[in-house]
């Protein structure tokens, strides 16, 4: 293999900066691995509080991803398929949680769904309490990860050949039938990608969960909150718990790269 001189190379100094950049994002992971108290891995990781937090995290993140899909896919369909005034504003609102500080999301949820929130009374009347409950943790993490599902689904809808759905209707399919049998199956890769991204985001959620659901072991203390709490008393043990999250994150990346964000492409434009 021969290397041809490329006219669009980069200045040598830039490479040095790039190396610093890569080191910058890699060092924390290296730090966790090197500084973790491996000798106590056998005690800390299987401890009941770690296992409980880990299990709760998986439950909360999975529930949040499902909530995001159920609510987010219709929003994406609305934004791509239905013309209406103020669409830009609606899209901005829907995507806002992506850039909003999670803590702000958390206090917002309290103001909306908390006991003294605008919907707190009606919710309480029907026997639903969200703040400082596991359901509340699901709500907080779903809020923060919601835009990821909407954006992924929207991208999928835009790249889909809309004529397939028209054809399905002309072949006798009612709108719901076409959605179920054609649109959603064709969107599957994007739905999975969006769901996994939302799940990963929900798994790492800290600020909104802490504000809205608190830090109650066994009920709302997810793994990130557990890391934070253990750090106060046992920093090197906390690194072991943190390592769990690193492993899960890497697994998500591998899953997304290998199957959902790779070169898989369907149909013709």
């Amino acid at each position, binding site marked *: 293999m021969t290397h041809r001189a490329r006219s669009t190379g980069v200045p040598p100094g830039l490479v040095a900066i790039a190396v610093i950049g890569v080191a910058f994002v890699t060092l924390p992971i290296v730090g966790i691995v090197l500084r973790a108290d491996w000798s106590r891995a056998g005690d800390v990781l299987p401890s009941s509080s770690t296992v409980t937090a880990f299990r709760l995290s998986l439950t909360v993140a999975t529930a949040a991803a499902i909530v995001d899909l159920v609510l987010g896919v219709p929003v994406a369909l609305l934004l791509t398929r239905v013309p209406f005034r103020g669409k830009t504003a609606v899209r901005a609102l829907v995507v806002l949680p992506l850039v909003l500080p999670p803590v702000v999301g958390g206090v917002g949820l309290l103001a909306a769904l908390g006991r003294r929130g605008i919907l707190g009374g009606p919710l309480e009347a029907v026997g639903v309490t969200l703040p400082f409950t596991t359901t509340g943790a699901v709500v907080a993490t779903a809020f923060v990860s919601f835009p990821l599902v909407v954006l992924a689904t929207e991208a999928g809808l835009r790249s889909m*050949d809309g*004529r*397939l759905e*028209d*054809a*399905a*209707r*002309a*072949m*006798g*399919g*009612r709108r719901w*039938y*076409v959605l179920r*049998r*054609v649109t959603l*199956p*064709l969107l*599957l890769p994007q739905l999975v990608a969006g769901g996994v991204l939302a799940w990963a985001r929900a798994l790492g959620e800290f600020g909104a969960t802490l504000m809205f659901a608190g830090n109650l072991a066994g009920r709302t203390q997810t793994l990130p909150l557990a890391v934070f709490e253990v750090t106060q008393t046992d920093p090197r043990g906390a690194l072991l718990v943190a390592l769990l999250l690193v492993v899960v994150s890497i697994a998500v990346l591998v899953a997304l790269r290998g199957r959902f964000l790779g070169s898989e492409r*369907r*149909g*013709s434009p």
Partner: protein
Amino acid sequence: MTLEVDVTVRREAFELRASFEATAGETVALLGPNGAGKSTLVGVLTGIVAPDAGTVRLDGEMLDDVDGDRHVAPEARPIGVMFQDLLLLPHLTAEENVAFPLRARGTSAGIARTSARRALEALSIGERAAAKPGALSGGQAQRVALARALIGDPRLLLLDEPTSALDVSARGRIRELLASTLSQFDGVRVLVTHDPVEAMTLADRLVVLENGGVTQTGTPDEVRAAPRTTYAADLVGVNLYRGNLEPIGEPDAGRLHVAGGGELIASWPDDIPVVSTEVIALIRPADVVVHAVRPEGSARNVLHGTVATIAADGERARVRLSSTPPIVAEVTRDSIGRLRLTEGAAAWASVKAVEIRVVSA
């Protein structure tokens, strides 16, 4: 059984006004160039596009009636469609694709599967029932799409550019299959195509669509004999000129001032009064004689220009001369060499006045 269409569809910079009928037992081809409005018209028939004015009626049932505020939804129309680019659903097998119209209308899975299997076998592609569209060859996919269009006994069979996805060699075979399928289908048959060969070989009647309007209807023979527009003339390989025919003081000849520039001397037809008249003049390419030097002789029309293109087709070749007006001549391949014709070379073309057919515009 009849399909009666008379609709107007308005888009930002485009208006389609189309009116035509199709009766059961005949195949009507909607023939036109890209951008003529064929796809819009297909959308109107399937119900995906709602017309802005007019009616679509099938067997007396109003599918669209803008004044009567009636628009039958796509899923409720008794139409079988073979879509442009086929549009097989990529996530379903061939059999599931063919079963789709039945399943969508509520037929149980088992019955739909049996019918789909039978439909595939009727088109001798039953062995590919379990294949996904991505694994089918072009011709196989074509058959699956045709089976899907025919399933469920539609009253209107709509074939939209049925062979455009295939290479030329595969088209002939599919055309035979389409011809036999069309002849066995006893409902209304509409073929939408930009391919004149497809239209001429499969259709009993042509509806020529250009720039959003119907410019001519007739049997293939009628259109071949007397095309009404440059597009139709090009389709059937005839030179066509629009312009004014002026008397020149001779009893049986006139001077045609061609709309795009240039003039021709043509015989004055008996059925046109001898006054300045807007006409269409037709010249068969085989009646045009090509010369390498200015011709001496009796032909009253001599055109001069450079050779724009030479297209060989078997023993014959079509020479397009960029004269005023431009003209296409059909010559033998031998004469190309004898006259040393090459693209860009200067040449002359001559046509006798009696070879120019003039009809009223």
